[in-house]
């Protein structure tokens, strides 16, 4: 099962490079459906993976896997609508933003990207995880370069260089942790689960160094400030379905690397050390997002900065531990659901208005009513209001911060969230209700271009009120190492 779920999208991705457009689109949805079925089966049955030194099914991995699957399936449906709309759009000769130039490359890379991300969630060996995370960078680079423009080339270049160097730093960190085993005279596989079980015997100096390097390395990929500079460029230049994948699940994959290393630190009794660093990076990210969100002129960049903010929130919550880590996990899941829906809607807006600038938009509520519902609900959710799940996640994090006596940090946290809400809502109001330059919209809001967003938002809403017991238990066992929920 485990090998099938990694290999199927990989092979399908390679095939997609050589087949026609319509066949490629069908294959994309089929692979999405197949992947979702397989992950549900893995979730229910929890089979033992082959090569147990390298792969394992962990609660945190399962959570990421199931969200990747669900998101990819919905995004694949959206993509077919998006590609069709873009096609008819450029055929009509309307003024438009850039279009995807080589569709077979786009679809093939989407599936390779899915395969590599799946490998990240299932890998247990430190180096295998590194290989998988670096592979996600390589598989997603063609996606960002889809428009083949000068700016998209710049975004892709920054993405590949900054992330490759960042991830190389993480490799160094992984080697340092392996050194910590050698110095501590421990012989065990270099896998997260094995190291966690012998964490007490490792050399603390090398372990701490390794953690810092891994945090900086994977933090670059996760979008933590001040290593986030590639993120707004890449997310705004990629076509919207790809942006939704990048923001919704790729960032989670990088977080998984940090989370698993943090587990080792907790097991070694160095949880205070790693927690403090995570909290600092988290707060810097939230503050950086707050400063940049205020003066944004493009809506996709706005969403990208909101992703940086949410990654900061997640890092902050993980750093606090206990109930905060539980909140961080909730934020992780709901951020995936809500932010990907927002990015998909931004695709509708991009085709509809023909521009990514906020000042070219306006009056979304009457021009594209269906997209407006998804956009506005997404905004409410991402700002941390009920009935969406981020509300509960942030609530738990703030509670945990106060309970553990981090009053100043909690103060900065709440203050920045307020600023972000103010800046974000200002822009959203302009887009939704402000005057628009012209009343012509180049988009027919077909079902496949609005329903995926609705499904994502409704899922978040349902999970806010009622969580299946197996999901709850999985989250609890994922954060058990960080002090658990009392």
């Amino acid at each position, binding site marked *: 099962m485990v090998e099938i779920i990694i290999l199927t999208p990989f092979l399908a991705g390679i095939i997609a490079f050589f087949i026609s457009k319509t066949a490629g689109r069908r294959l994309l949805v089929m692979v999405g459906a197949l992947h979702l079925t397989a992950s549900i089966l893995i979730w229910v049955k929890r089979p033992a993976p082959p090569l147990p030194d*390298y792969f394992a099914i962990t609660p945190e991995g399962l959570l990421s896997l199931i969200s990747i699957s669900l998101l990819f399936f919905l995004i694949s449906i959206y993509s077919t609508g998006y590609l069709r709309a873009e096609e008819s759009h450029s055929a009509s000769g309307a003024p438009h933003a850039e279009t995807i130039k080589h569709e077979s490359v786009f679809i093939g890379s989407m599936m390779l990207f899915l395969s590599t991300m799946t490998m990240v969630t299932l890998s247990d*060996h430190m*180096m*295998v995880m*590194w*290989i998988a995370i*670096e*592979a996600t*960078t*390589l598989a997603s*680079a063609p996606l960002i*370069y889809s428009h*083949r423009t*000068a*700016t998209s*080339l*710049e*975004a*892709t*270049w*920054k993405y*590949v*260089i900054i992330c*490759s*160097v960042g991830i*190389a730093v993480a*490799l*160094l960190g992984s*080697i340092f942790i*392996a*050194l910590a*085993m*050698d*110095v501590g005279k421990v012989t065990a596989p*270099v896998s997260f689960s094995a190291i966690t079980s012998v964490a007490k015997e490792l*050399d603390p*100096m*090398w372990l701490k160094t390794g953690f810092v390097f891994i945090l900086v390395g994977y933090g670059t990929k996760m979008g933590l400030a001040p290593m986030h500079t590639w993120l*707004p*460029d890449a997310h*705004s*230049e990629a076509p919207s379905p790809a942006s939704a994948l990048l923001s919704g699940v790729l960032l989670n994959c990088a977080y998984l690397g940090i989370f698993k290393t943090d587990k080792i630190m907790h097991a070694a009794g160095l949880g205070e050390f790693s927690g403090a660093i995570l909290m600092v990076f988290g707060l810097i990210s939230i503050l950086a997002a707050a400063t*940049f969100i205020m*003066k*944004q002129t493009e809506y996709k960049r706005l969403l990208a900065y909101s992703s940086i903010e949410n990654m900061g929130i997640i890092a902050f919550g993980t750093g606090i531990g206990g109930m905060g880590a539980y909140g961080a996990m909730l934020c992780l899941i709901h951020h995936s659901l809500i932010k990907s829906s927002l990015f998909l809607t931004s695709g509708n807006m991009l085709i509809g208005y023909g521009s990514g600038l906020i000042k070219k938009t306006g009056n979304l509520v009457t021009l594209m009513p269906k997209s407006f519902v998804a956009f506005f609900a997404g905004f409410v959710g991402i700002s941390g209001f009920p009935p969406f799940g981020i509300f509960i996640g942030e609530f738990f994090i703030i509670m945990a911060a106060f309970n553990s006596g981090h009053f100043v940090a909690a103060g900065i946290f709440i203050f920045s969230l307020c600023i972000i809400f103010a800046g974000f809502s200002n822009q959203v109001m302009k887009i939704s209700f402000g005057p628009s330059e012209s009343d012509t919209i180049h988009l027919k809001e077909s079902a496949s271009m609005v329903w995926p967003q609705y499904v994502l938002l409704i899922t978040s809403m349902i999970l806010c009120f009622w969580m299946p017991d197996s999901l709850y238990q999985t989250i609890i066992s994922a954060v058990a190492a960080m002090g658990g929920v009392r």
Partner: protein
Amino acid sequence: MIYSVDTILSLALLSSLFALGSSRLPGLIKVVGFQGVVVSIVPIFIDHNVTSGAVTFYMFTMSIRGVVIPLSIYLLIRKIAIRREVEPIIGYHASLFAGLLLIVASSIMNHRLVLPSTTSSVLLMPTALTILVTGMFILMARRNAIAMVLGYIMMENGIYLVGTTFSMGTHHIVEFGILLDVLAGVMIMAIMLENMKQKFDDVDTLYLSELKE
């Protein structure tokens, strides 16, 4: 055996200085290729029980790090680069001086680090760190995109050398995966360099500053 390792490593150490001082891309490529060869043969001298499988793997590593990667970059330059200057942001003399300081710093650091007792060569860690940081330095202090890619490769070489300090034993499959990733990464960067040449008629990263707040 140990002395021969130190001889090779000291050459690699000096080649970092050469890389920092070289103003032209072909010189930089030669250094990267040489370091690629050195880092892939050092494990043969250090490993106490060399099996034939291990030797095959090291030879394979050498052909990728020492031949395939530098050669592909070299062919790329012949294809696209008109000007072969590395366009320094930090001058060559300052870079060289920084390189010297770096060697001193990494030697001092090596004394303070607690290394596993299996590490036999005194020069291994300082050389690895120097190559690594030199790569990072070139990545940041040169504007030419090809020089940046070479800096990245140098950095990867340094990391690989750090990796040889611990007993890798049966990790060859994993090492192979890492190598494949690096190779694929360099290939993707090469494709992007070609695109850059087509779009801007140059590979100066000065052209890549459209996107900002």
